[in-house]
């Protein structure tokens, strides 16, 4: 184990989060934390509120109650742009790539928060802007190598197979060099081989870059294999939290997943 893999302090602390859409309660009084460098999974049956939770962290949804502490800074609501600038990147459940653009262009958009040169210089493709573009391109090429997608970099994303699109989306998130990565069902709809690849990439990202990862996933085998700690949601409530083993033996969790006999 390298130094980077050592689990650090709590960097994200969610305190008593409640979120409702009109009368529908999506999340009720949920608290959990995420430690530096760990892989934290959120699981639960469909409609449990997992994606809503991610959207709260990401600033898309604003919870009616509760606080979010990220790197010591407390906030009630955030806008997604600011969240991105704080170093949180994400992928989406239904792939949200820019379909008409090439793989390379898609990943370059991930560099957005890091680009500094002004609008005018950029529009005119001036010296500093040009050098900056080249520097960013270098980082992007590293990400492309890392995820082994060199061969498709000039292909419009819309033409790629589903599994590859998921990988490109991960690449775009990584291009931002995030300190925390939110993955919404990174393996949904993949075949076994693609899943294995994706697992390897997630572990490598976590290991080599020291990126903290919060992921939602339905494949229990995968979740139990790669996560350090798991939080379980059901009907918008937290019903379990702990290491994979603890969670698996939690009677509440078993009930939620298998149902009860009446």
């Amino acid at each position, binding site marked *: 184990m390298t130094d980077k893999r050592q689990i650090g302090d709590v960097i994200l602390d969610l305190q008593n989060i409640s979120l409702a859409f009109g009368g529908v309660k999506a999340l009720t009084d949920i608290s959990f934390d995420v430690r530096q460098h760990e892989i934290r999974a959120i699981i639960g049956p469909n409609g449990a509120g997992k994606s809503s939770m991610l959207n709260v962290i990401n600033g898309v949804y604003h919870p009616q109650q509760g606080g979010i502490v990220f790197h010591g800074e407390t906030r009630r609501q955030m806008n997604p742009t600011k969240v*991105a600038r704080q170093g949180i990147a994400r992928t989406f459940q239904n792939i*949200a790539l820019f379909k*008409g*653009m090439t793989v390379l262009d898609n990943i370059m958009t991930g560099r957005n*928060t890091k*680009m500094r040169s002004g609008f005018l210089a950029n529009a005119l493709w001036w010296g500093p*802007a040009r050098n900056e573009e080249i520097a960013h391109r270098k980082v992007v090429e590293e990400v492309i190598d890392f995820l082994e997608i060199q061969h498709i970099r000039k292909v419009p994303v819309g033409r790629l197979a589903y599994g590859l699109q998921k990988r490109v989306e991960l690449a775009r998130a990584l291009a931002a060099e995030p300190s925390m990565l939110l993955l919404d069902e990174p393996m949904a709809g993949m075949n076994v081989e693609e899943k294995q690849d994706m697992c390897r990439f997630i572990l490598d990202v976590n290991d080599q870059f020291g990126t903290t990862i919060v992921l939602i996933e339905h494949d229990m085998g995968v979740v139990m294999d790669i996560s350090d700690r798991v939080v379980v949601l059901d009907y918008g409530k937290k019903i379990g939290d702990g290491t994979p083993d603890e969670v698996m033996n939690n009677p509440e969790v078993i009930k939620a997943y298998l149902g009860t006999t009446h």
Partner: protein
Amino acid sequence: MQFFFEVAISGLLSGLMYSLVALGFVLIYKASGVFNFAQGAMVYFAALAVVGLMDKGLPMWAAIIGSFLVMVVLGLATERFVLRKLVNQPEITLFMATIGLTFFLEGLGPMLFGNEIRPIDLGIVDEPIMSIMDSVGIGISKFDLFASGTIIVLVILLAVFFQKTKVGRALRAVADDHQAALSLGIPLQHIWAIVWGLAGFVALVAGLLWGSRNGVQFALTMTALKALPVLILGGFTSIPGAIVGGLIIGASEKLAEIYIPPVMQDWFGGNFGGIEGWFPYVFALLFLLVRPEGLFGEKHIDRV
């Protein structure tokens, strides 16, 4: 045959002027997924601002710069007071908002800058170039040629901007997926402000060209609607599409105007003038049946 070419060429050139208006629609549609119904009104408004400022005693160049600033402010205000409230709303809501904006601009323009018909004189006369007339026997208007040149330069600049710059890439990203763009830290508000500023600039160029051909009057908003068949032909998301669509509409409406009425008169008797007023719309309608996504539009295949 010479006459045929003369009609076709003048049609092509005036078609480019439709392209210019269509370009304004495409810009905003590409970057925000909004069909900006107000683009025609923006053309009118920009042209009005130019003549209005000249009435106040400004020289033409200053009036043009002034009008540009007015359009930028207008773009920023639209983003701030209309669009910002409507982030993540369905497209139809945004579309309705732009209809509201249309009526607002059509009222505000004449109120600020007067409503009498005034000419814009760019100093280029709308008459045939004699050297071409003498050698080939085809009349090509100087003004048409000047307008086409301006439009071509503008299009090249826009294409480079969209394809090669960070801002252009961010614009395309926002157009494709608001949510994803936000998650990457692309500031939606800035992007929309830039796009509306750009659309305002394109509207100004269109307003100057159309205004100097037909005079600055309310009918400009109607002429601008000819951009709709252009868009149906070219596709709503394609800059080259707007150009090609404009060329086709321009040439076909002029040719239809000249060659269809005699045939119709032979068949049915009566008078069939003024075909160019409606021909583009019928043409576009027929085209829609065959290729709904346009010549260059993105074909949508949905998972069912």
